[in-house]
C-alpha cells in the first residue's frame, strides 16, 4: 500500500483568544525563510503583512450535519475553500487555517473527520493555540472560548512571557496544565517559536499517537523548579497544590482523564462501550486518544476522536518486550469520571 498520508496536504489550525498573537505567529510563519509556500485561510483580510496570493478570506460558517447529532458540526466554508484550493495543488506545501478569537476549534477538526473530499486531499496536522501569558488566566475564568481552545490544543504557544513575572508565568502554566496536560507548550515572546514546533506535528496522525504521556512542566532555561513562594490567587473555583515544587491546578469545569490497564481489553466489550460513551457524552468530550491492547490480538490498536467522531485502526504489532499496556486520554468539560472509569474497568479481561 502506498503511503497516502504523505501526499495529503497538511492543515494546521491556528486558534487563540482575541489579542493573543495569532496574526504575529502567522506573519512569522509566512516571513521566515523556509522555502515553503503556505495557503492561508484567514477571517480578516489586511492584517497579514506578507504578500501572498494564496491568502483566502473565509466566513466561519458552521453547520450541523443532517445526522441528528447536535455536536456534529462542520465548517462549510472550509469544505468549499479546500475544494477550490485543490485546483492549485502543487502551488503550496501546506495550509494554515486561522480561526477567529472566539471560535470553537471543534467544527474545524470535525470537518476533517466527516467530509470525504476533504479527507481525500488534506489531513489535519495539529491545533495550535496561541495564549496570552498576561491575560489567559483571566480569560479562562470569563471566556469559555479561551478554555475550549486550550483544551483542544496539540500545541500551545504561550506568548508575551516578557510581560509577566516568573510567578505569573508559573501560575498561567499551571492553569493550562490543569485543563490540558498533553499539549506541547512553548513559552515565547512575540511568538518567536521554531516553525518545526508548530508545523508538521502529525498530531492527528494515528501512527504518531505514540506518546500520550502528560507533558508536565518542563524546565525552561529561566524557569525555577524550586520556586515555592508563588502560591496565591486561590479562588473558589480552583484548588492548587504542589508537586515537587510545581503548582498544580484542577479546573472545575474542563479537565482531562487518563485511564490505563496492563491487562488486555476485550474488544467485543470495549468497542461498543467507547461508541456508546462518545454517543452519549460526546458533547462533553472534546478530544480522546488511546493506544489499546486487546486480548488475542498481537496488534496495537490506536484511536482518536473529536466529540462524537472516532477513528481508529490497527497500528502495528506489539514489539517483543514492549509492555502491552492500554492507555486512554479524554479531555472534556465536566467529564463523568466515575462512569467512564467504571465502564472502562468492565472492558478489562479478567
Amino acid at each position, binding site marked *: 500500500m502506498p503511503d497516502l498520508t504523505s501526499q495529503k496536504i497538511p492543515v494546521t489550525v491556528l486558534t487563540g483568544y482575541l489579542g493573543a498573537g495569532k496574526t504575529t505567529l502567522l506573519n512569522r510563519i509566512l516571513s521566515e525563510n523556509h522555502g515553503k509556500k503556505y495557503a492561508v485561510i484567514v477571517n480578516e483580510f489586511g492584517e497579514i503583512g506578507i504578500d501572498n496570493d494564496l491568502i483566502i478570506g473565509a466566513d466561519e460558517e458552521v453547520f450541523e450535519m443532517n445526522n441528528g447529532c447536535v455536536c456534529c458540526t462542520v465548517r462549510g466554508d472550509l469544505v468549499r475553500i479546500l475544494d477550490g484550493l485543490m*485546483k*492549485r*495543488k502543487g502551488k503550496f506545501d501546506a495550509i494554515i487555517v486561522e480561526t477567529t478569537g472566539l471560535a470553537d476549534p471543534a467544527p474545524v477538526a470535525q470537518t476533517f473527520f466527516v467530509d470525504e473530499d476533504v479527507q481525500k486531499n488534506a489531513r489535519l496536522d495539529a491545533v495550535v493555540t496561541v495564549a496570552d501569558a498576561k491575560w489567559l488566566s483571566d480569560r479562562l475564568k470569563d471566556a469559555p472560548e479561551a478554555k475550549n481552545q486550550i483544551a483542544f490544543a496539540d500545541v500551545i504557544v504561550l506568548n508575551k512571557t516578557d510581560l509577566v513575572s516568573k510567578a505569573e508565568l508559573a501560575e498561567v502554566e499551571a492553569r493550562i496544565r490543569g485543563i490540558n496536560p498533553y499539549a506541547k507548550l512553548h513559552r515565547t515572546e512575540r511568538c518567536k517559536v521554531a516553525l518545526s514546533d508548530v508545523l508538521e506535528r502529525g498530531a492527528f496522525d494515528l501512527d504518531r499517537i505514540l506518546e500520550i504521556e502528560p507533558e508536565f512542566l518542563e524546565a525552561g532555561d529561566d524557569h525555577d523548579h524550586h520556586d515555592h513562594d508563588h502560591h496565591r490567587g486561590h479562588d473558589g473555583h480552583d484548588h492548587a497544590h504542589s508537586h515537587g515544587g510545581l503548582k498544580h491546578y484542577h479546573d472545575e469545569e474542563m479537565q482531562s482523564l487518563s485511564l490505563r490497564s496492563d491487562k488486555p481489553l476485550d474488544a467485543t466489550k470495549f468497542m461498543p462501550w467507547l461508541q456508546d460513551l462518545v454517543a452519549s457524552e460526546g458533547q462533553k468530550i472534546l478530544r480522546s486518544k488511546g493506544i489499546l491492547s486487546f486480548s488475542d490480538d498481537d496488534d496495537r490498536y490506536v484511536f482518536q476522536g473529536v466529540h462524537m467522531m472516532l477513528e481508529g485502526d490497527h497500528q502495528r504489532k506489539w514489539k517483543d518486550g514492549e509492555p502491552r499496556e492500554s492507555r486512554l486520554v479524554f479531555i472534556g468539560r465536566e467529564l463523568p469520571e466515575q462512569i467512564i472509569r467504571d465502564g472502562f474497568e468492565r472492558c478489562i479481561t479478567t
Partner: protein
Amino acid sequence: MSAFEPGGDQASIASVTDRVRPVAIGAPVTSVHFLGERAAFVGAEENVFLASSEGEILPVAVHSGGILCTVSDRARLVMGGDDGKLVALDTNGEVTLLATDPKRRWIDNVALHSDGAVAWSAGKTAFIRSGKGEEKSFDVPSTVGGLAFAPKGLRLAIAHYNGVTLWFPNMAANPEFLEWAGSHLAVTFSPDNKFLVTAMHEPALHGWRLADQRHMRMTGYPGRVRSMSWSAGGKALATSGAEAVIMWPFASKDGPMGKEPAMLAPLQARVAAVACHPKQDVLAAGYSDGTILMVRLTDGAEILVRRNGTAPVSGLAWNAKGTVLAFALEDGEAGLLDL
C-alpha cells in the same frame, strides 16, 4: 480489478474503445464542455484547452489562478476563478472579462440563462447581469452553494445553508424561500420547470415540487453527488455518487416521490460524472477508476468507451447534435469519440 470485467456477460459488451481519439492536454482538467463544434477542456487553473474536431489543441488563458466554476450553453463558456474574475470564452476563442470582484473574492458559482443573462456568486452575494447589461445583486444568509436559472422567466435559484432562495430580479415581489436543513450545493430546475433539485453536502439530493413546495428526499448515496444531468426531454435526472448511475424518474406529476430510482451500469467503482445525450435516451457515465460507459436508458445496455485503471473521470460532454462525446480525466488525459 486490473481490467474492465463486467460480471457474467463479459463477452457480450460492445466496445468502442478503439474509436476514441486521444487528446493531449498535459494539465489537470476539471470539466468538459462544447463551444460550437470544439470541445473545451477546462484546466484546474489558468487555461481552457480548445480541441478542434481534427484534434488540434489551442490553449486559451482565461484566469490567473484556479478555475472554480464553469457553465456553458455551447455558444459561450463562462467561468469564475480564485482571481475574483468572471470570464467568458466564445466559439471563436475570444475571452471577455465580464466582472471583477472588487474585493477579489473567489467567484464560486456561475449560471447562464437562455436569454443571455449570467449569474454568479462570491460569498453570500449572488449577482445577475441581464442580456442588456443591467446588474443586480442579492444577499442570502450564508455562502451561496449553487446557482441555476429557471427554464422560464427570469428567476434565479440560489442554494445555501438550510434551503434555496428563489429570486426574481425583475420583480418587486419578495424572494421565495424553500427550506430544508443542511448545506445545499449544486441546484437544478427540471426542464419542465416543475421541480427543483439540490445536491447536498451530505450524500443526498433534496427536491421540491415548485407548485406546492412538497419535499422530495433522495437518499442512499454512499458519496456526495457532484454530477447531475437531465435526460433528453427531462424525464429523468441522472446522478453520480454511487457505484451505479442513479436515475430519478421525473416524468409524472409527482416526480420521484414514492418511487425507486433506476440503477444503471453498476461497476466496482463510483460514478464520478454523468452526461445525458442531448437527443436520445442514452447517457455517458464516467467512473472513479477511469472507466467510461455509454448506457441506453431504456434497457441499461452498455457500450465500453474507455477502460479502467487510471485517474477518475472529471468531465463528460456531448456536442449539440449528440455526434461527439468528449471526456477528460482528473490528471489531464482526454479524448473524443465520434458516433
